[in-house]
């Protein structure tokens, strides 16, 4: 089965004052339709950069050194900004870690949701708007109303029409856009996310809501375009533990409805266990292991993954917590060959010379480690 997204050999560097930061050093990842795949790793290993690359929202000093991201047979890294704009929020959408920071503090919730809606559900809004004009009180100027209706219909059928471009700039006539703002639709969207009192919420500002509510608003916005892929960057880290489970369930339910894929970025293995089917483990800008979630916990193979799993305390089990010796490498001068070799107990000579490729050692289980080259 062809994956929805295939990342091939992606290499991304950042140019900074201190030198070139080799943040992503050749990653390969497949994301299939409808699956929930986790991307785990320590803080700073490059998970967020990966997700931002898929959305193509990297900082201005990012350098794409190599690689491609294939989506529907095309390399999205070559897309123009306009083409990406269309995809973002629509086919791909993203949920951020800190919803307070991710929402515009000076805009009401309804306006922010409206922004998403008008981009990705425009026709729906237009049809509703036309209906509203029809239902409008005939006391108002009939000519004006007809004009509004005409403009709305033109937008629906012929959005690039010249007439539209000119007329939509004239002050009074511009008012036809007001009809597009449909509180009902917005409330509908919020209700889908199990938020309480959506009617009140839409009139509020982000700082007036609780963390869980803000996250739900973000989810509502992310789903407005019936996305094929949702990238969730640590969606539960900033939320209370009690809400975390609810948010996760919510994401799962909504995914099921539209058969959306989920790329869940986190350093919390517990969440991975809850919701992911497959997991990719990332270390220092490389993917070191990819397997299904059961294998991850029961039979991980890469030394780093082993270290991770061993470091997680398990309730009810008396276990010695082992941490991994050493610390995250410097991205300016990363270790040669395999980036983990300086901390690896099973390091061999070849590990410092050559970077290991991701090879499939059994069905659905890939590892990038020289210790497996021997076993065919």
């Amino acid at each position, binding site marked *: 089965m062809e994956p929805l997204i295939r990342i091939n050999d992606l290499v991304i560097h950042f140019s900074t004052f201190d030198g070139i930061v080799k943040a992503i050093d050749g990653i390969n990842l497949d994301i299939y339709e409808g699956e929930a795949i986790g991307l785990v790793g320590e803080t700073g290993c490059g998970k967020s950069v990966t997700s931002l690359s898929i959305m193509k929202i990297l900082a201005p000093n990012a350098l794409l050194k190599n690689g491609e991201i294939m989506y529907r047979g095309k390399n999205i890294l070559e897309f123009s900004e306009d083409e990406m704009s269309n995809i*973002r929020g629509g086919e791909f959408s993203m949920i951020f870690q800190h919803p307070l920071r991710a929402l515009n503090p*000076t805009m009401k919730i309804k306006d922010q949701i409206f922004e998403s809606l008008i981009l990705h559900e425009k026709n729906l809004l237009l049809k509703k708007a036309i209906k509203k004009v029809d239902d409008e009180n005939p006391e108002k100027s009939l000519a004006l109303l007809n004009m509004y209706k005409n403009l709305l219909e033109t937008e629906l059928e012929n959005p690039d029409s010249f007439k539209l471009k000119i007329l939509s700039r004239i002050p009074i006539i511009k008012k036809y856009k007001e009809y597009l703002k449909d509180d009902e639709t917005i409330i509908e969207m919020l209700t889908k996310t199990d938020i309480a009192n959506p009617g009140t919420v839409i009139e509020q500002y982000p700082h007036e809501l609780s963390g869980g509510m803000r996250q739900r608003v973000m989810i509502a916005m992310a789903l407005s375009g019936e996305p094929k892929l949702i990238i969730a960057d640590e969606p539960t880290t900033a939320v209370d533990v009690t809400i975390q489970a609810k948010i996760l369930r919510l994401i799962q339910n909504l995914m099921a409805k539209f058969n959306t894929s989920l790329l869940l970025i986190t350093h919390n293995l517990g969440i991975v266990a809850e919701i992911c089917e497959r997991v990719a483990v990332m270390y220092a800008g490389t993917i070191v292991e990819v397997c299904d979630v059961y294998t991850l916990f029961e039979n991980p193979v890469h030394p780093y993954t082993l270290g991770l799993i061993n470091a997680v305390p398990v309730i009810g089990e008396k276990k010695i917590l082992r941490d991994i010796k050493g610390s995250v490498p410097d991205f300016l001068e990363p270790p040669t060959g395999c980036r983990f070799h300086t901390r690896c107990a099973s390091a061999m000579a070849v590990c410092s010379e050559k970077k290991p490729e991701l090879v499939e050692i059994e069905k659905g289980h890939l590892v990038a480690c020289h210790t497996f080259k021997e076993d065919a």
Partner: protein
Amino acid sequence: MRKLHIYIIKGFFHSLLVIVGLSILVFALSRSAGDPVAGYVDPYTPLYQIEQIRIKYHLDKPLYIQYFYWLQAISRGDFGLSRIYMYRPVWYTIQRFVPITVELAIYTLIIMIPTSLWLATKSVKHKDKTVDHITRLIAIAGRSMPTFFFGIIILMILYPLKLIAVAPVFDFQPITNMPTFDALLNRDWAGFIEAVKYLLGPLIVQVFINLALTMRIMRSSMLEELYQDYVTMGLAKGLSRDYLLIKYVRRNAMIPFITLIGIQFAYLVNGSVISETIFNRKGLGFLAARAATQLDHPTVLGLALVLGSTMVLTNLVVDILYLYIDPRVEAG
């Protein structure tokens, strides 16, 4: 909301304290420059009357008592007599010069605000490209340009072209006391042109100097907002960069910008001493310069107190305004 009220009250008291402190400073200065009674008499006052005035203002009492009576006099508007303006009351003299300065302030702001917004946006959009460099050069030029040098250059260039009037004569009825508005109200077109010429020199200087500052501050403000998470989120929603720049970045960056404008306004009202002197524009700055050079202490000190209080109050108003405008702050 309660936190807001407490903040306002605190701010109010703080401003009051500063104004009181200022008045003490001014008082101390007024008593350190010769015989204080000189500020209240003119050359024709007979000797016995001088004694009476001395008693009236309690000038024979100890300093701290003098201070209270001085405050009393100030609150009545009695700052003494202005030596350089025919011994008229200082307050009256100051009042006469206010409208001219206010007029300049109004026009400067009208030009400055949209221009700095537009230039800042362009600088941010094309960061580190030509536009950005040009604005940076303008900013440095504006900051480092001594006002009077620039003013003299403008005078040198524009005066021969008859675009500047240094001693205009107006025929129309003074209604607002601001030449351009009065001319329009009187439908005196020739007078209006004359009034504009009167305004042009200082206007160009003020706009240039202030624009340099506001433009770059707005740019910094916008850049700060540009790298915030909500802008990245906006991108992730599929919003276009142009839309984000205006509706997200600029709109949010305008909030601190507004407070800056408020403070600029206070500075402008306080009179641009140098540009008014160069172009002979009879506003508060001109008055201050003249009074200082001619050693007209009552006027100088009166101006100091009045202008200082205006600054303090403007700052207070701007602070409060900021609290109302920024929804982030409402929650306390």
